[in-house]
């Protein structure tokens, strides 16, 4: 009977466990978690804070008891793994105990990054974990905040901004980057979104570093910007970014860059040690390099591929591209592909102004899309972009073409996307 360990129990860890049980009903699977919570989805935290999801809704796979029974797993809670001796396939626990396995999966996720200049703050909130969500949720229950500063104009930042805005709180969104969604949006599209936000009365402080923050006895905080100006606020929320949780592996043993580097089988540079989810760098189809693509669905497919390979069934994570959809304040932003790639720009605006599409093409081939307010075309264009990157015949099927027209894209524009191919 084989012995497997899964370290970290989020989306990737859960899908790995499920995949192991597809083929191996007998193996012993130990799942290590440093909490007593079931796998949760960090993306749902803002929905819980906003009151749009009950607490139980943060855990899409059910309770730990259900999972343990359904998938015959030994889930070891509140237990910190301090190190993995990769060569020996051994897990070291905080009490010094060591457990040896046949194969290990590191699915430790990522943690919110808080720069040193903010580290001493007592009243600032983050938005990544269940504890973060509960803390902000309860704070908003206790009192009404008149204003807030949200640092980090990312997909999380905008959702925090949305929920506070809807409570009648004046929001300032700040970021060192010059524009909103700097890692996904083309500058022109960012500007359109920014105009809308300003029109709603949301203040934007972009393009300058946040130098620090000072908490006062009256409960307010002064946020200092690099240009010497400052903003006084009652509520400070930090969504500056995340860092892959790779600390349990030694870079002397296992290749670790920003994340743990894996191949298409989700195996690290050390045989028998796998990694999946936000802690790892899988294949980016667009660059041909490995990169952290920290998305829920990506973590799921990576975890599944890892689990299948651990159990001896072939499973590949077929690579991915950067992609995002964010539904906020009655709009949709969709970014597909690496927004740093430049080329010929083609734009489409529907006759009624209902949606806007910007495509970037290089050598006649699409390399990225930004879409405003049209989720209907998003999946078809994403599938198309992946097809192009895989070198498959780049055509829309009749069904896809019909749907693109149904959702407002013109036949001419559809032809232009494939005309040069």
């Amino acid at each position, binding site marked *: 009977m084989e012995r497997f360990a899964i370290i970290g129990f989020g989306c990737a860890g859960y899908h790995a466990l499920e995949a192991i049980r597809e083929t191996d009903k007998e193996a012993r699977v130990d799942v290590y978690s440093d909490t007593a919570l079931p796998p949760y989805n960090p993306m749902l935290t803002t929905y819980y804070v906003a009151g749009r*999801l009950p607490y139980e*809704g943060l855990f*899409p796979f059910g309770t730990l008891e259900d999972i343990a029974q359904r998938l015959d797993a030994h889930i070891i809670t509140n237990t910190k793994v301090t190190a993995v001796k990769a060569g020996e396939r051994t897990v070291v626990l905080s009490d010094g105990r060591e457990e040896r396995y046949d194969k290990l999966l590191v699915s430790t996720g990522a943690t919110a990054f808080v720069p040193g200049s903010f580290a001493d703050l007592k009243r600032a909130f983050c938005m990544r974990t269940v504890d973060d969500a509960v803390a902000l949720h309860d704070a908003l229950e206790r009192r009404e905040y008149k204003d807030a500063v949200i640092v980090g104009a990312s997909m999380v930042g905008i959702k925090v901004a949305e929920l506070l805005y809807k409570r009648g709180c004046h929001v300032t969104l700040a970021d060192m980057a010059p524009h909103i969604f700097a890692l996904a949006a083309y500058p022109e599209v960012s500007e359109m979104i920014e105009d809308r936000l300003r029109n709603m009365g949301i203040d934007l402080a972009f393009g300058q570093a946040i130098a620090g923050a000072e908490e006062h006895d009256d409960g307010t905080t002064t946020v200092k910007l690099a240009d010497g100006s400052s903003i006084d606020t009652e509520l400070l929320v930090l969504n500056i970014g995340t860092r892959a949780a790779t600390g349990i592996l030694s870079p002397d043993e296992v290749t670790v860059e920003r994340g743990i580097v894996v191949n298409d089988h989700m195996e690290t540079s050390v045989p028998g040690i796998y990694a999946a989810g936000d802690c790892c760098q899988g294949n980016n189809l667009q660059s041909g390099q490995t990169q952290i693509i920290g998305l*829920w*669905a990506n973590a799921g497919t990576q975890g*599944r591929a890892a689990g299948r390979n651990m159990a001896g069934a072939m499973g590949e994570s077929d690579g991915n591209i950067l992609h995002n*959809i964010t539904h906020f304040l009655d709009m949709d932003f969709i970014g597909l592909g690496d927004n740093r790639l430049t080329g010929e720009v083609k734009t489409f605006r529907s006759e009624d102004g209902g949606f806007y599409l910007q495509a970037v093409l290089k050598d006649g081939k699409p390399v990225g899309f930004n879409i405003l307010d049209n*989720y209907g075309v998003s999946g078809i264009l994403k599938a198309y972009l992946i097809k192009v990157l895989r070198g498959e015949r780049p055509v829309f099927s009749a069904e896809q073409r019909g*749907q*693109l027209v149904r959702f407002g894209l013109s036949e001419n524009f559809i032809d232009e996307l494939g005309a040069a191919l």
Partner: protein
Amino acid sequence: MKKYLFFDPEKCSACGACQLACMDQNDVDASTGAQPFRFTFTQEGRGGDLHFYSVSCMHCADAPCVMGCPSGCLTKSEEGFTLYDTTRCIGCHSCAMACPYGIPSFGPDGKMVKCDACYERQKAGLVPACVKVCPTGALTLLTETELKERQQARQRSRSQTMLKEFAV
């Protein structure tokens, strides 16, 4: 037992009966902006030739919407249909971005809706509403064996057509 909601474009005339039956069965109120779960359309080829289609959820074997849903609302049934329970749907549109056919849509309450192959009707021994009304037999509910027979028949027909073309 696996089942397939099979569409044969060669038999379709895009008459729209399936779309209407679907709206009726699923209480789709178009006046609220709700989208029908099934959509029929006609495409004109470069030579002026017309092609007819009826599109709804493809019930993909490895459905990307299932993995894409952050709330676990989508599941696969034993028969292979992609079902959903939107109690915990947050209306984030992630399933739409995951779907290569643009199928998920969102009702007035912001929650996802789509074709579930009339699962409740099937449980009661009935065929999906679109299948029931299709006047040309373009939409059918097939078992795995029936699907394979259809596919083989189509392959044979294509081979014969090609042979004839080469003979000329």
